[in-house]
């Protein structure tokens, strides 16, 4: 093992043996083969991105483990576990506060309104301009998230690699960016040929393997230090507490992390993370989505907390007992790899590293897939619509969009690599991720939240929240000691990375104040705009207002004046943006809130079905299928079976292969047609049979949806 000192932290190279590398390569090949097998279930972009809305809750719940664990990675939680103890994983157990909003607000809205991306929601609820701004902010968020994933992957791989390679006599030094580029190429290849169904099944497999690998490491570590009692007694009391100290130190304190992760991060994760949302949208119904989300937060996240953090806790215990084996100044971001190598035998170490890196790749894959979905829905299709480009057939459109999706995946991967540069300077991945969440999520979090739960929230308010909020956030970043300090709860400011976490509170407050303020000033702004319209030069005046607003925004971004002047500019900017938004945007409060806020979920459900709801609770029935010749978009059951399901012609039905362990992979959604008299038989068209991948001789299970 080679070691060298870098700053105050000791870093490692060439950890592991050739056996470990062989295990890793075999594991990766297996996972790629496994994923590409399920790629055949992608028949359109809908399947490529959403997996066809057909899966059972348990399949999605387990597939989310790899995404969640990957993104809240082994590396960063082990690092903080080594430095501060069990509280490193407190962010895994603080998501429940927003779950009512998600389960009964956002989840039914995204499913019933058939929204394919978050920006699309902004267009339906507010206006195309709101969609445009949301797309920009969301792309920043997603690409930044991909960058964090790549940074973590690079940091996980670095300790295993030598300091330099010698290929054909030429020496190549191992650099973090070099490693990240190689990883990005491998990740890009996989996602490009897989799609959402492949990702779901790969993640399902990896979810199980990750839990196994994490607990394996925990048990190996406990036995290495001499049993649970010894482990417990070696740790100082502070290391055993589940929550961090309230407001110190600046790089890891409870209150900052509560606002950064418990509030901004939780809402961001549940409401904005397209990768996760697409998983919930792949469940067969809203209720299954609720089960997947609740099960994940109640059971999988607490288990994952042990899985991801334990290497750091074990590392701390070893460093107390044997500082010669794990030096107390070991680089925190390397502690996972160092501990895994110490407690596991060759081959087992390779397996643990493979599980870790493959899970991280799953996270990145999911995010790349989701960002490509945003590109197709919010850039590609609107541009095609604008340019009036239309293919002759739906099949042709699907083919072209699939190709565009694959190209966009490649470009997004490259942008993700570039975004690593923004996070590289942070001492640990944890702080980089914290800073990222605090900075990029608040405007979107506030906009989505107020949009869903407050009918009165207007397009002018959302656009002003985006522009005015971002401007105030930039001022906060420039003058943290004046603007963020009042919110700091006594946290000391680190001048190099000021208020990495608690800035989330400031950012949330300023965005909320602007959004709520503009909404309450609604009537006054409207009256002003109406008076303005009566002026003969109103078009020129509004153009001048727009130009002034752009200029003020540039002044703020470039920090060209003193703080007091810039704050005055901010006030003028907010007023101007609100006026210009009211002037240009046509908004129908009734039509643009119906089915799009929590106050009209039932209406959304009716719109989804296209007719009156039938909420009578029926039973599930088992049927054999027969081919029907007509392609009328319906499937036909017997009168008696319809009666058992309490279904009427025109109601929606979900029918799947009866083998539960398939989790809905072979299934379709359809509409009840006119009944016949053959009990236990369903007539299905050839197209539906193909979509469901149903097999002759295997019974199907049918249930009424609504």
């Amino acid at each position: 093992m080679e070691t060298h000192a870098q700053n105050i932290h000791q870093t490692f190279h060439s950890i592991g043996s050739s056996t470990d590398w062989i295990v890793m390569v075999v594991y990766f090949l297996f996972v790629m083969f496994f994923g590409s097998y399920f790629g055949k279930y992608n028949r359109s972009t809908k399947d490529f991105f959403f997996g066809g809305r057909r899966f059972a809750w348990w399949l999605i719940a387990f597939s989310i483990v790899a995404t969640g664990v990957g993104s809240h990675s082994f590396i960063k939680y082990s690092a903080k576990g080594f430095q501060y103890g069990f509280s490193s994983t407190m962010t895994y157990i603080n998501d429940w506060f927003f779950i009512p909003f998600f389960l009964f607000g956002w989840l039914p809205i995204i499913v019933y309104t058939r929204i394919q991306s978050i920006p699309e929601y902004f267009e339906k609820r507010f206006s195309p301009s709101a969609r445009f701004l949301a797309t920009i902010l969301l792309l920043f968020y997603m690409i930044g998230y991909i960058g964090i994933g790549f940074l973590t992957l690079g940091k996980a791989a670095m300790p295993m690699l030598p300091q330099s390679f010698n290929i054909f006599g030429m020496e190549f030094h191992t650099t973090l960016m070099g490693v990240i580029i190689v990883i990005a190429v491998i990740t890009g290849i996989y996602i490009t040929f897989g799609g959402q169904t492949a990702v779901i099944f790969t993640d399902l497999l990896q979810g199980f393997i990750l839990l196994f690998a994490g607990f394996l490491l925990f048990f190996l570590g406990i036995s290495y230090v001499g049993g649970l009692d010894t482990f417990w007694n070696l740790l100082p009391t502070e290391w055993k507490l589940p929550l961090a100290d309230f407001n110190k130190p600046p790089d890891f304190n409870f209150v900052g992390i509560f606002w950064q992760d418990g509030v901004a991060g939780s809402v961001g994760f549940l409401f904005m993370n397209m990768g996760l949302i697409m998983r919930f949208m792949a469940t067969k119904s809203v209720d299954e989505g609720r089960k997947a989300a609740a099960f994940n937060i109640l059971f999988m996240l607490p288990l994952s907390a042990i899985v991801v953090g334990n290497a750091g806790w074990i590392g701390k215990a070893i460093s107390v007992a044997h500082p010669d084996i794990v030096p107390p100044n070991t680089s925190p971001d390397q502690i996972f790899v160092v501990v895994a190598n110490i407690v596991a035998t060759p081959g087992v170490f390779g397996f643990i590293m493979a599980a870790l890196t493959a899970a991280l790749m799953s996270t990145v894959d999911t995010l790349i897939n989701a960002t490509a979905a945003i590109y197709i829905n919010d850039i590609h299709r609107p541009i095609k619509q604008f340019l009036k480009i239309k293919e002759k057939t739906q099949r042709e459109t699907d083919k072209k969009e699939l190709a565009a999706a694959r190209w966009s995946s490649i470009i997004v991967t490259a942008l993700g690599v570039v975004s690593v540069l923004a996070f590289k300077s942070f001492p640990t991945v944890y702080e980089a991720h914290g800073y990222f969440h605090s900075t990029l999520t608040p405007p979107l979090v506030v906009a989505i939240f107020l949009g869903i739960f407050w009918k009165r929230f207007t397009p002018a308010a959302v656009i002003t929240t985006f522009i005015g909020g971002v401007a105030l956030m930039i001022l906060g970043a420039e003058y943290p000691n004046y603007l963020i300090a009042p919110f700091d709860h006594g946290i000391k400011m680190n001048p190099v990375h000021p208020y990495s976490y608690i800035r989330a509170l400031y950012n949330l407050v300023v965005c909320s104040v602007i959004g709520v303020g503009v909404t309450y000033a609604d009537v006054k702004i409207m009256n002003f705009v109406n008076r303005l319209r009566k002026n003969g030069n109103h078009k020129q005046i509004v153009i001048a207002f727009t130009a002034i607003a752009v200029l003020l925004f540039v002044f703020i971004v470039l920090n060209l004046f003193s703080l007091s002047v810039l704050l005055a500019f901010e006030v003028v900017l907010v007023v101007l943006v609100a006026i210009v938004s009211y002037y240009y945007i046509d908004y129908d409060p009734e039509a643009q809130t119906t089915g799009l806020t929590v106050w009209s979920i039932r209406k959304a459900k009716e719109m989804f079905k296209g007719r009156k709801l039938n909420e009578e609770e029926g039973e599930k029935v088992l049927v054999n299928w027969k081919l029907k010749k007509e392609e009328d978009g319906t499937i036909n059951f017997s009168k008696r079976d319809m009666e058992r399901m309490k279904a009427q012609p025109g109601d929606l039905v979900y029918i799947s292969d009866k083998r539960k362990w398939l989790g809905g992979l072979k299934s379709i959604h359809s509409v009840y047609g006119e009944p016949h008299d053959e009990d236990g038989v369903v007539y299905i068209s050839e197209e539906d049979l193909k979509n469901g991948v149903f097999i002759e001789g295997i019974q199907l299970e049918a249930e009424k949806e609504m």
Partner: protein
Amino acid sequence: MPSITHTWLPLIYLYGVGGIFFLIGMIIIKKSGALNLQRKRHRYWYRVLILGYFYFVAIHTFFTLIAIYW
């Protein structure tokens, strides 16, 4: 013994401030009719939501106690 700023204050803040968000969420989904307690399935979810909150309070309290006293 660690100070209260490391033991009980974070827990009180977490479930106090977090609890306010949770309560607002419960009130909104009930008032809006998105959670309709007339329906059996929704009554089940209502119980899950409330129990979930106290389940996490119990986890944190338990680990704080054993960290201090065990």
